[in-house]
C-alpha cells in the first residue's frame, strides 16, 4: 500500500444560518485505501460530502487532490478533477436505460459537440462507440451487464445502487465517494456490495465511504474518521476507533453523572 496522500482536506467550516454544521473538519486519504466516515445522525457527514464534491460552498477550507489544489466551487469541476460520487437517496436518470446512465458518466471525459453530433464524422463515431463499450464494461464490472437496456427506474433497488456506482466510475475518478451505499439493503445485498467495493479497491481506486453499518465498515475500511456535531472526534484504524472512548460516548451516550 503506497502512502501517497490522494485527498487532503483541512480546516473546512460550513455554517447554515445559525447552525455551525462543520467546524474545522479535515480528512487525509492515502491512495488505494477505503476510508470510512461515520458519525451519529446529523453529525455533518453528508454536509462534508457535499462540500467536498462542490454541491455546497464551504465558508473556509483547503482542498487538494493528488497533490494539486482543486476548487470545490462547482460540482462539474470537481468531477473533472477526479472525484465522483453517489447519493444517499439514489439519483439516477430514471427514464434513461441503465447503459445510457453510465454513458452520461463518460460525458466529462469526452468532447464531441453539436458538429460531431450532426455530422457523425469518424472521430464522433469512434468516440461514441468507445463510450458505449466502456459503459457496458462498467455495467458488467458491477454485475448488472444483463440489464443494460432496462429503464433505470425499473431496476431493483440493489441494482440501482450498483448502477449509480457504475455511473460514478464512468467519470474515471481518482476518488470514489459513496454516500450510504448500503442504506436499505438486506444482509445478502450488503455482502455483495462489500465484494464490489473490495473489487473496486483492487482496481486501484480510492474510496471514501459514509455508512451506518458498523460491522460492514470495520471489516472493510483501512481507516475511519468519526464526526459528531460537525467536529472530528476521532481518526484511526478500525480497531482503534472501536475502542475510542469519545466514539463510544457519541454513539451510546455518556455515563450518567
Amino acid at each position, binding site marked *: 500500500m503506497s502512502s501517497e496522500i490522494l485527498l487532503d482536506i483541512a480546516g473546512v467550516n460550513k455554517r447554515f444560518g445559525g447552525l455551525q454544521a462543520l467546524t474545522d473538519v479535515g480528512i487525509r486519504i492515502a491512495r488505494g485505501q477505503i476510508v470510512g466516515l461515520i458519525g451519529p445522525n446529523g453529525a455533518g457527514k453528508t454536509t462534508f460530502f457535499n462540500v467536498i464534491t462542490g*454541491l455546497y460552498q464551504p465558508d473556509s477550507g483547503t482542498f487538494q487532490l493528488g497533490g494539486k489544489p482543486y476548487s470545490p466551487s462547482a460540482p*462539474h469541476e470537481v*468531477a473533472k478533477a477526479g472525484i*465522483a460520487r453517489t447519493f444517499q437517496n439514489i439519483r439516477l436518470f430514471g427514464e434513461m436505460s441503465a447503459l445510457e446512465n453510465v454513458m*452520461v458518466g463518460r460525458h466529462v471525459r469526452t468532447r464531441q459537440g453539436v458538429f460531431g453530433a450532426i455530422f457523425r464524422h469518424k472521430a464522433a463515431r469512434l468516440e461514441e462507440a468507445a463510450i458505449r463499450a466502456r459503459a457496458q464494461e462498467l455495467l458488467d464490472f458491477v454485475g448488472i451487464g444483463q440489464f443494460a437496456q432496462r429503464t433505470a427506474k425499473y431496476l*431493483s433497488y440493489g441494482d440501482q445502487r450498483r448502477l449509480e456506482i457504475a455511473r460514478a466510475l464512468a467519470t474515471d475518478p481518482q476518488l470514489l465517494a459513496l454516500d450510504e451505499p448500503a442504506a436499505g439493503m438486506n444482509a445478502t445485498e450488503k455482502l455483495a456490495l462489500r465484494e464490489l467495493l473490495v473489487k473496486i479497491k483492487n482496481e486501484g481506486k480510492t474510496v471514501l465511504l459514509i455508512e451506518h453499518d458498523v460491522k460492514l465498515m470495520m471489516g472493510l475500511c483501512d481507516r475511519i474518521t468519526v464526526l459528531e456535531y460537525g467536529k472530528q472526534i476521532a481518526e484511526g484504524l478500525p480497531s482503534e476507533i472501536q475502542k475510542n472512548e469519545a466514539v463510544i460516548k457519541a454513539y451510546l451516550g455518556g455515563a450518567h453523572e
Partner: protein
Amino acid sequence: MALLTFDLQHKPRQARISMAAVLALMLVFPFVASQFGNSWVRIIDIALLYIMLALGLNIVVGFAGLLDLGYIAFFAVGAYLVGLFASPQFAALLESLIYYSPTLGEWLVALFGPEIQQKGIHLSVWAVVPLAALVAGLAGALLGAPTLKLRGDYLAIVTLGFGEIIRIFMNNLNDPINFTNGPQGINMIDPIRVFGVSLAGEQGSGGMVDIGGYAMPSVNAYYFLFLFLCIATIFITSRLQHSRLGRAWVAIREDEIAAKAMGINTRNVKLLAFAMGASFGGVAGAMFGAFQGFVSPESFSLTESIAVLAMVVLGGIGHIPGVVLGGMLLAALPEVLRHVVEPAQQALFGTVIIEAEVLRQLLYGLALVLIMLVNPAGLWPSPNREERPNAALAHDEQEGAKA
C-alpha cells in the same frame, strides 16, 4: 401507428421502410391536394412550419426538460429579420434615423449607398436562413441566461414574460427609429427565390412557378422547400438526441443535481439547448415571413406559444415522430375546421351556429384534457425500452426493498 416505427436504433429496417413510405406520401400529396384547390396545400405549408417550431421547442422542453412558454419569440425574431432585410423596410428605418439623428443617419446612408436608402435591403434566402438561425440562437441563449437557476413553474413564468416582451418590442419599435413598423407590421417582404426562381411566381404568371419547364402552383413550390427544411430539422434533432449532447440534455431533465455531479456543465449545456431550439424557431419564422409576405406582432401572441407547446405535449414530448404528428394535427385542425364546419352548418341549418374559431378552442382544450387523462405521455410517446412484463410488480418490489 403500430405499422409505422421510426426507431432506427432498435428496428432499423422497419424504420427505413416507414420513412420511405411517409416520404413518398408527402411527395405525392401536393399534386393530389392541389386538384381540390390550393388552399389545402397552403394549410399543410403552414403546418410544416409549425412542425419545425414544435421540433425546435422539443429540444428545450422535451429533451432538456425546460418548460418554455415564450418560444414564439424566436419565431418572431426570424420573421422580423426577413422583414427587415428582405423588404423595403430598411429604407423606412434609414429615413426615420435621418429624421432622428441626421449625422448618424447620413453616415449610415453613405455607408449603405443610395440604392438601399430608396429600396431597402434585399438579402437572398441563402443569407437570411443562416442569419435567422444565428440571431434567433443568440436571442435564445440571451433569454436563457437569466433563467438558468429556475425550474418548473418559475421558469415557465419568466419565459412567458420574455415572450411577451419581444412581442411588445415588435409592437413599439417604430418610434423614434422605425425598426418594425409597429402594429401595422412590415409589408412587401420578398418571396423566397431558389436558384433565381421566385417561389411566389413571377409577375403576371398567375401564381404559377416554372421549374425547369414544369409549372406548379406557388404553394406547391413552397411546400417542397418547407418539406425539405422539416426533414433537415428532423434529421438534425434526431442526431442531436442520440449523441453525447442529447444524453446530457436528458440527464439534466431527469436529475439536474446528479447531472452536475457527473461532470456536466449544466449552464453551458442548458444554454446550448435554448440556443439550438431557438435557431429552429428563427428559421421557421424567416420562412413564415417570406411565405406570407407580411409580418405583424399579432402573429406572435402568447396563444401561439401555447399552441406550439400543445403540439409537443399532445404528440409525445421528447419523441420526434410524436411531435411531428402533434404539429400536423394541431396546425392543420383549425384550418380544416374552417373549411368544413361552417359550410356544413350552413348546409344543415341554413346558418352558422358555432363559428369555426370557437369550435377550435373547444377542441384544443378537449384534446389536451383527454390526452392528459388517457395517455399523459402523448399520442405517440417514445417506445418503452425493455421493461419487466409487469411494471406494477416491479414497482411493488422496489417499494418493498425500500421498506
